[in-house]
């Protein structure tokens, strides 16, 4: 039998705020345990939550970016369960009426475009952390993360392969970092996926029983976990068994998923509207101001780069891989009237390679966009050959500075002295009469020989265009 897998993703995106969802504690990563947990986060008796405006703004921005409805009125609800890293004994989330409803994200897998429909995105607070080592058989609770604002983004069960799920997760990651609502740091848990996976015979419309794989914090784990889970469920069904709805955990060391919570432990969360909070109201003017503040979205920018600036789809894709790449490129264009294609070639070529070599992000590139612009201006006006430009780039990378100053100091500019170049060519022709004869006899190939020798003789400083022209003139003259 042919099996089809059905995947829906729930992604927890940590919102880029400096303070928590409902308290004035800091959200910075890596503080000593419990130093960023105030009386509200610790759920001391009598404390009350007040929602963070910036977190709501992030949710609105996300909703606009995916074409969703922004609910003018939504509710915070309490999700009740006991866990030592959940200080209140309930999580404040949104249940019946989330702030973001619907929307879609476009993905492309092997050249085929799909639209991944979103169910909803809702605001909620994160829990703390339990640490299990070094406490003589006990667990230690750190509540620094408790109350950190999250946006949980839920898709419809519309993905049909691990590749689609990963493509969606990558697109979502690009989008939330692009619009500045999340730092995207997956190691620190700022972007975590839960995958709902089920299988069904090809052609069947009813969904199979699903399992939820929790806390996948890398794209590779997401892919592996889904693949494993698909194989596990198929094997189970083909062996005459049945899939039990449960929560599973992916173990990257063993590359398998295992049961985390059995059905008997399934919780009745007793959701109800949080009586400490009134409805969350978002008026049209707030939505419009967030819309105005939204940057050009990656897909729109990619289209513009291709259709207005004439870049290839490939280059446009690279330059919109992240907001930082796009910003670098756009800044470069703003610096002066430099050819967009030349700029694209340099950013996706030399700059990208250098960054990759040293493991650096483009946002902290040692060569700034204005430095690179200064260099490319000299390429465009013919002062520098490609080879020389790379030398200048290396100096900029290592030592900083300004391209023009480096060119002047190192004497790197191309020979602009026509007479000197003529002298070099004349000498070459004297030294190589046979090759001159061959060329004149119609052997065009020999032209390259002279270019190479001339370049060598000038230390690469000859302007290729000038050299070509002069060579042709002199070789042709009988």
């Amino acid at each position: 039998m042919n099996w089809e897998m059905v995947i829906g993703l729930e992604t927890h995106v940590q919102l880029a705020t400096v303070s928590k969802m409902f308290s004035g504690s800091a959200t910075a990563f890596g503080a000593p345990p419990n130093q960023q947990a105030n009386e509200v986060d610790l759920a001391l008796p009598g404390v009350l939550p007040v929602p963070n405006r910036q977190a709501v703004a992030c949710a609105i921005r996300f909703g606009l970016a995916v074409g969703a409805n922004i609910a003018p009125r939504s509710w915070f609800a309490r999700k009740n369960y006991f866990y030592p890293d959940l200080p209140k004994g309930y999580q404040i989330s949104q249940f019946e009426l989330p702030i973001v409803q619907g929307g879609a994200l476009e993905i492309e897998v092997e050249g085929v475009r799909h639209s991944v429909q979103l169910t909803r995105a809702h605001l909620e607070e994160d829990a703390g952390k339990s640490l299990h080592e070094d406490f003589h058989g006990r667990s230690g609770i750190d509540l620094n993360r408790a109350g950190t604002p999250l946006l949980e983004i839920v898709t419809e069960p519309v993905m049909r392969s691990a590749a689609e799920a990963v493509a969606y997760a990558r697109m979502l990651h690009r989008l939330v970092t692009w619009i500045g609502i999340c730092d995207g740091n997956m190691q620190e848990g700022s972007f975590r996926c839960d995958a709902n996976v089920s299988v069904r015979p090809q052609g069947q419309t009813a969904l199979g029983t699903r399992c939820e794989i929790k806390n996948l914090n890398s794209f590779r784990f997401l892919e592996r976990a889904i693949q494993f889970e698909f194989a596990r469920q198929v094997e189970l069904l083909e062996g005459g068994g049945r899939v039990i709805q449960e929560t599973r955990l992916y173990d990257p060391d063993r590359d398998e998923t295992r049961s985390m919570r059995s059905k008997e432990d399934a919780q009745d969360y007793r959701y109800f509207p949080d009586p400490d909070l009134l409805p969350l109201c978002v008026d049209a003017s707030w939505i419009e101001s967030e819309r105005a503040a939204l940057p050009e979205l990656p897909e729109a920018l990619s289209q513009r780069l291709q259709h207005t600036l004439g870049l290839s789809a490939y280059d446009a894709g690279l330059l919109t891989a992240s907001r930082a790449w796009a910003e670098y490129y756009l800044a470069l264009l703003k610096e002066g009237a430099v050819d967009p294609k030349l700029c694209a070639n340099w950013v996706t070529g030399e700059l990208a390679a250098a960054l990759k070599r040293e493991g650096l992000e483009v946002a902290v590139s040692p060569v700034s966009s204005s430095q690179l612009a200064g260099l490319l201006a000299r390429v465009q006006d013919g002062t520098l050959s490609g080879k020389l430009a790379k030398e200048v780039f290396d100096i900029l990378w290592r030592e900083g500075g300004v391209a023009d100053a480096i060119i002047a100091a190192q004497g790197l500019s191309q020979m602009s002295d026509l007479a000197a170049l003529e002298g070099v060519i004349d000498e070459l022709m004297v030294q190589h009469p046979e090759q001159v004869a061959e060329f004149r006899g119609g052997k065009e190939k020999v032209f390259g020989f002279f270019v190479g020798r001339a370049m060598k003789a000038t230390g690469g400083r000859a302007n290729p265009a000038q050299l070509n022209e002069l060579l042709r003139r002199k070789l042709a003259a009988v």
Partner: protein
Amino acid sequence: MASFKTLHDTRLHHSLPRMGGVLSDPLNETSLHQLARLACIQLTEQELAVLPQQFDSILGLIDQLQAVDTHGVEPLAQAFDMPVRLRADEVTAKNQRELFQSLAPEVEKGLYLVPKVIE
């Protein structure tokens, strides 16, 4: 948009048998156990003996609501219908860990200690 009820049905599991009230049979000891588990309270034998009767009395009281026609009436969660106030995204808290942890039954290296949490 799915209704509240649908979300309950799709996202949660049935863990409590129907019990008590006009909605079904009186509250029995088994269902009381399950309720106690939800509320995380260990009940004593004595409590288990007296609670069902007290519950019948309480359910008898609140079951009066079933007779009220509330068709078309919006639930009222709060006395006033006004939007929630939002706060500016600012860090206003300072580190008071020592003070707060002076209240804790068991701490070590700045962490609250509990019996081993099994994931």
